């Protein structure tokens, strides 16, 4: 198979994917579980995340030409169970994409457009994600490569200026009693890191030959966790864990307070707008992965071969169904704040962790035991 991109080009996709759920989940989630020690939760996730990178690299070493995690799952579990698991994963990715449509729309409404309806944002972003899913994987990968420096530059600038607002008494002292909370809080960072990586490897157009996969993934894990640690420290240090748990968007509240060189202020609308790109990448990748899984279940090749937009051959009608499904999920699910909170804090992270830490390892073990991979 002719590969269209390599690991070095794929990892920015994982980074951009990582940013949106990281901002949503990690500061409030870790503050609620670990209190003042929330900023220590993120580094605690590193050993487990490195272990997961090792598992993923071992799993991917079993791939054959043109395979991704979806094909490996099908091969490991065989015909019926493989299709069943892939169908379940396809549904989950579609629901996850739909939830992110809702979450992103709510973020824009609460920070910039307080009088707007979520539906138009959901439908607009859903259509963009659908167009991306109808196209080639490499387009998505290259989009992420372009978006990543812009988003990271803004994030680093904001976090640098926010350092002056950090107070020591919001971060210290730390005692051994905070350990349990820290470990629980680290699951948020772990979950986001794991899902970012495995979602990327559900694509199959990447070249891995000659790559030191575990080393590259480990370096990626260290760098994203370092960034997340900085973000968490700034937010907890500025607001304190008590106030952080009560703010609906603590990162954007932090941006709202920043003044650059005593002249420029109130740039949160620009920063929120920039996060639309991260949402777009996440939703597009979810739709790509969902349609890929469903098309494999139907026995079709999921590779893009230059088909036109309304070409429904080779099971491409599935892509339209996934897009429609995601938009419907976004419009109908989690419409109340309490429901959104439940999905955001418990259901989505919980299921993602189950997939990452139970389902995929189980698939690998079964495949190895049955000598199918």
């Amino acid at each position: 198979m002719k590969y269209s991109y390599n690991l070095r080009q794929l990892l920015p996709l994982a980074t951009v994917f990582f940013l949106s759920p990281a901002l949503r989940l990690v500061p409030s989630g870790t503050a609620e579980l670990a209190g003042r020690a929330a900023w220590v939760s993120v580094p605690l996730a590193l050993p487990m995340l490195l272990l997961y990178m090792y598992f993923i690299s071992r799993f991917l070493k079993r791939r054959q030409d043109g395979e991704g995690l979806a094909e490996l799952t099908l091969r490991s579990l065989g015909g019926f169970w493989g299709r069943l698991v892939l169908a379940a994963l396809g549904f989950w990715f579609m629901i996850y994409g739909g939830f992110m449509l809702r979450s992103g729309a709510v973020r824009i409404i609460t920070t910039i457009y307080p009088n707007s309806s979520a539906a138009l944002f959901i439908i607009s972003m859903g259509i963009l994600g659908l167009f991306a899913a109808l196209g080639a994987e490499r387009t998505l990968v290259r989009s992420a490569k372009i978006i990543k420096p812009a988003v990271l530059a803004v994030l680093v600038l904001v976090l640098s200026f926010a350092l002056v607002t950090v107070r020591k008494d919001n971060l210290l002292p730390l005692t051994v009693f905070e350990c349990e909370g820290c470990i629980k809080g680290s699951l948020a960072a772990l979950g986001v890191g794991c899902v970012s990586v495995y979602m990327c490897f559900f694509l199959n157009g990447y070249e891995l030959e000659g790559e030191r996969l575990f080393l590259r993934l480990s370096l990626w894990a260290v760098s994203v966790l370092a960034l997340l640690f900085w973000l968490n420290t700034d937010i907890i240090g500025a607001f304190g864990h008590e106030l952080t748990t009560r703010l609906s968007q603590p990162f954007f509240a932090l941006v709202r307070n920043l003044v650059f060189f005593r002249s420029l202020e109130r740039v949160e609308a620009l920063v929120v707008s920039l996060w639309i790109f991260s949402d777009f990448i996440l939703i597009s990748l979810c739709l790509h992965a969902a349609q890929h899984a469903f098309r494999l279940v139907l026995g079709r090749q999921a590779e893009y071969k230059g088909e036109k937009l309304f070409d429904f051959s080779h099971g491409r009608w599935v892509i339209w169904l996934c897009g429609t499904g995601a938009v419907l999920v976004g419009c109908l699910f989690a419409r109340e704040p309490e429901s959104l909170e439940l999905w955001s804090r418990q259901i989505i992270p919980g299921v993602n962790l189950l997939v990452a830490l139970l389902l995929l390892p189980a698939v690998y073990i079964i495949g190895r035991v049955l000598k199918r991979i």
Partner: protein
Amino acid sequence: MRKCILYITVFSLILSGCGSIYSNYREVEQLLVIETMGFDYLPGGVQLTLASGISSAGIKGPIRLSGVGPTISAAMDQARNYSFEDELFCSQTNSVLIGEKAAREGMEAYLSYICQSPILRTDVPVFIIRGGSAFDSIMGSGDSQHGVSEILKGVTEYLETRGGSHIFKAAQISRDSLRHGSALCCALEYSESAEPPTESSQPDQIEGETSSARTLAVAGFGILKDNRLVDYIDKDAAVGVSFLINNVGISSIQLEDSMGRSIVLEISGGGSQVKPRWSEKGELTGLDIALEAKATVMEMNDDADLSRESYTKQLTQALELRLAQLVGDVLRQSAKLEADFLALGSQVEQHSPLLFRHMNKSFSEALPALDFHIAVKASLSHTNDMKESLT
């Protein structure tokens, strides 16, 4: 075809949220930029008062408006509805005033609104109007040349640079209330101005009648317990607070020397360290507070002679005694109210985290029984006045 659909979609994304903007799109000149916001308690609701700056309102003077409603948002809607303005732009709000009655009823709703609102910054300074209402303060302060927003800018700068005080912002008050159950908030009083009223500020004045302009002046701190105002710390005693929270600004302090002569010192720096005292059973018995202060002589009378070491030493001791009194008064007030508005609990926890965690009651509850030992070390660095008087 595909590009056409893509462009339509991108534009719909750009325009999709703009139902709230393009339907009520305004030029910058059409916006009334609100710089001061005030909240007052009404039975069953809230009175919201808003004021623009002079620059936004133009030559007519600051624009002030008010609305009433069962909630803050309803009051805001009423103010907007019944005003002459096209659009109220509240994202530049630099100060929030809360009337005394509203503060005594509870500030939680106002602080929550500020922290959750997408239009207000969480680090906006909050002031309590001592003995008055935010409505009167905003409507009556200043004149055609100086609105309440300009007055508050001056107050904020004064507090930031000198005045021995500290500005407490909405996020900090909320955090302290959540963490310690108690917090401090700057207090202002609505009083007569030191400046005579100008003709332009009195357009309706009847000939022969005199009236004075009113302003907002620093009036110490308000003590909040469970988000309700319970007491005040006077301006003169605010120096004690600044030492205990380690935020000592430039402030003046008047002393008497051994001959009863007045001397004015300017405190230029300092801080405090708090060390807890624990019993053998692990109970907190007291606090040792070590203060350090640097001061200069601002003003002295005829016979004072700073070249004499004994005189300087005597002055230093008088300063130490005075600071110990001020700090002691604040600590006793904290103990009496069982309110840890100085965040001493945090300092104790920093020093002895394990013992603090095992305390059988909260720090606020333990305050009344604590024994405070205050040690002050002051130094006079130089004098801004002459070494000897002219006579």
